[in-house]
């Protein structure tokens, strides 16, 4: 059979499309649960890519059914790897969801920006520092202390 160019293209673009959709979802959506879902989609794309790497025309699943002459089999290694990757993905997603549950309980929001704001405030409060948000009166001491006009006058020096 002549390798079908379109099939190849379709499969690859499906895999990459999934990754792209996932990435776009991660960038675009603000709701964290959606972002986790987007991550799942992207992972699916990567897994698909991995499986495609082991695909072989005219081959059967890598299970020995008859002894003696073996038919052509697809590469078993990517399959094993995908199996691993999927389970890893599941673990991470479950963890992500459990964290999201807690966040929702604490902050009552899953919006990315609101979450970040609240987190920042909490970190600052724990550390005991003022939050450095105001552009008008930036906080923080300079290592080279600025010399005030009055001090300059008092020293009588300017150079």
């Amino acid at each position, binding site marked *: 059979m002549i390798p079908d160019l379109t099939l190849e293209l379709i499969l690859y673009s499906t895999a990459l499309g999934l990754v792209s959709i996932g990435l776009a979802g991660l960038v675009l959506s603000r709701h964290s649960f959606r972002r986790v879902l987007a991550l799942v989609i992207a992972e699916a794309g990567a897994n698909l*890519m991995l499986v495609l790497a082991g695909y072989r025309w005219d081959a059967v699943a890598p299970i020995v059914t008859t002894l003696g002459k073996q038919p052509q089999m697809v590469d078993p290694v990517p399959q094993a790897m995908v199996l691993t990757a999927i389970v890893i993905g599941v673990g991470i997603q479950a963890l992500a969801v459990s964290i999201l549950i807690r966040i929702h309980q604490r902050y009552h929001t899953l919006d990315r920006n609101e979450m970040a704001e609240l987190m920042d405030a909490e970190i600052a409060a724990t550390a005991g*520092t003022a939050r450095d948000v105001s552009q008008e009166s930036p906080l923080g001491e300079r290592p080279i202390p600025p010399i005030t006009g009055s001090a300059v006058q008092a020293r009588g020096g300017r150079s």
Partner: protein
Amino acid sequence: MNEHLMLTIALPLLGAFLLPIIMRSSLAMGVWIGPAILGYGCWILGNLWLHGNGQPFSIAIGGFAPPIGINLYVDAMALLFAFATQLLGLIFWPFRLDQDTPKRQALMLLLVASSTGLALSGDLFNLYVFYELVAVSTFGLIAASSSGAAYVATIRYLILSGIGSVLTLFGIALIYAQTGTLNLAHLAQLAPDQLNNDLGLAAFLAILIGIGVKAELFPVNTWVPEVYATAASRLSAFLAGLVSKLAMLVILRLLLLIFHQPEATQVILILGILGVISGEFAAWRAKDMRRMLAFSSIGQLGVIFIAVALPDERGVLAVLALSLHHMLIKSGLFMLADHWGGSLDRLRGLAATSPLAGGLFVLFALSLVGMPPLPGFWAKFTLITELAGQTDPLYMIGLLVFLLATVIEASYLFRVAAKMYQTKPTENVRINAPDSGGLSLTTASLFGAGLIAVTVMVSPLGEALQAVAAQAQDVDLYIQTVLQQPLGERQ
């Protein structure tokens, strides 16, 4: 004997699985299991280091000859980092006892096991698995501080790390599709023919960005400040000190063995430079100790990335020296942060109440900025002489940025030091974690003592590191060690 090396990964895993069960029946026995396992691991690795013949060797897991099965590649560099992992795991062991102890300790064991695996593994996909295990156990441990901020920091880290994984996996898929193998030695053999092209480069960059998340590579390191600020200090110390270095090690290995393209080093160099700039400048304004250390860590890792981009043996030496130095210093500093906690303003006059801590801070800071007899100087010296020797003007920029960053670093570190030595304490310093206050100071002193010991022995250590670097840099040695006979099926 060599086979026992496997125990350094297997035993922590076993311990982690059994720990919750054992602890349920006997807490007293349970608390000693983790330290015992890690101590044994240290002993194995130390023994190997002392009694080994200095030649790298390879362990085939499951007895399958390397290109087919997975192998551990043990050279001096791997051994060094594996040992550091076990040792730091022991030092930063979460002793705290409460209802979550079993899980926390189990996660810590997993973290150590996987970090060791990351240092030793010789298979691309296996590295990915260990990398993910590091990630997941890290998430658990960060979130274990159970503040809202920690949860948010974790989820942000998790998502970023997740995208990183996707990209890494994608890169691995590309490489596998191209070469049909995952073994690093085998890949190294094939790379000049098959990966020295756009595809190989794209795969590497995807992996770089993916693993870079952990290695605090410039634009994907935004998790760093918040995670280090919210996680327990001991964990932050472990993460900043060790885990980032291991990710760096993986990148270094891939770069050395497989991806020799100049574009690859250029990308690393540029991102490293940006990392230095962003980290050090951000640290300059930081107002609490943890975040300052986190930003400074980003800057330091940027410096190490610059070193990674250096092509030859002295470059590897610089990476090793800088990594080990930073490991020592940052761990110590985070321990001090644990001891003090909180905002920098509260440190005013602190040296009077706790002179040891003040002295340690100054010592660490001096070494960090590269005050000569201290080891930091030698690491930086190696780096800059190597940087200056490159013809590409980009390296020159790297050199200048590095120098500038050091000035800024000195400025903000000694601003803190000066504050500490101010005569009048304005208020009583709040010790953040009362139960670990003494412990963390002791730990910090340990690192301080280590630093001084290294200072004294800098000459032999430098030579030893040079040998390590030479070994790590030798691609042929790697291939020969792992693939003892050429593969029949090679096309």
